[in-house]
């Protein structure tokens, strides 16, 4: 029962990735795409945790942590570039 609910939650989060991906493709300006990318990476961290749970591998949580750090630095770099300071 609990495993089924976890799987349903993973599918719902995956559909969230698809919906935010539409905005990532459409987005009129570069800042819109960066906002969509930010949301995509946050959803992606949860998805990696779901995959770690279903695969039973704790190492994927470290992958999620590194992914989060890289996306944070990337969004800060893009913001700095849009502001004209890079």
């Amino acid at each position: 029962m609990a495993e089924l609910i976890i799987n349903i939650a993973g599918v719902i989060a995956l559909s969230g990735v698809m919906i935010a991906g539409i905005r990532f493709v459409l987005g009129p300006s570069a800042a819109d795409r960066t906002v969509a990318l930010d949301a995509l990476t946050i959803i992606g961290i949860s998805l990696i945790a779901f995959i770690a749970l279903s695969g039973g591998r704790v190492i994927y949580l470290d992958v999620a942590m590194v992914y989060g750090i890289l996306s944070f630095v990337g969004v800060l770099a893009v913001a700095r570039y849009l502001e004209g300071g890079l």
Partner: protein
Amino acid sequence: MEILKLTGAIIALIGSVFLLLGALGVLRMPDLYNRMQAGTKATTLGSLLTLTGMGLYHPAWLPQMIMLGLFIVMTNPLSSHALARAAHHSKVAMSNKTVEDALEKMNGTDSNIDTDAGRDVNDNRMEELV
């Protein structure tokens, strides 16, 4: 033990619904700033709930899930703040339903930026509303 797993799974389900709603807000909101609000607040809460739920489902991984959640809580508002400031600086257009732009008014009085500027803006807003 089974009840703990079930509780964790239900919390993770609620969190994934929040993730879906945040993504829907990113798609549907009218301008960049509204999209940023939906895409940051809702996904932060959603990822916190999913990580907590999965930590309860698999209690041996709870410390690492808590570390991941704390990391998201610390970095996500920071990156969204920097991005909003950069977008405002590069003159991304607002929706035409926007009531006021406090940062623009503060940039107008660049000689003495202090806490009074924000209060004046609020006073003007109150007068307009009254």
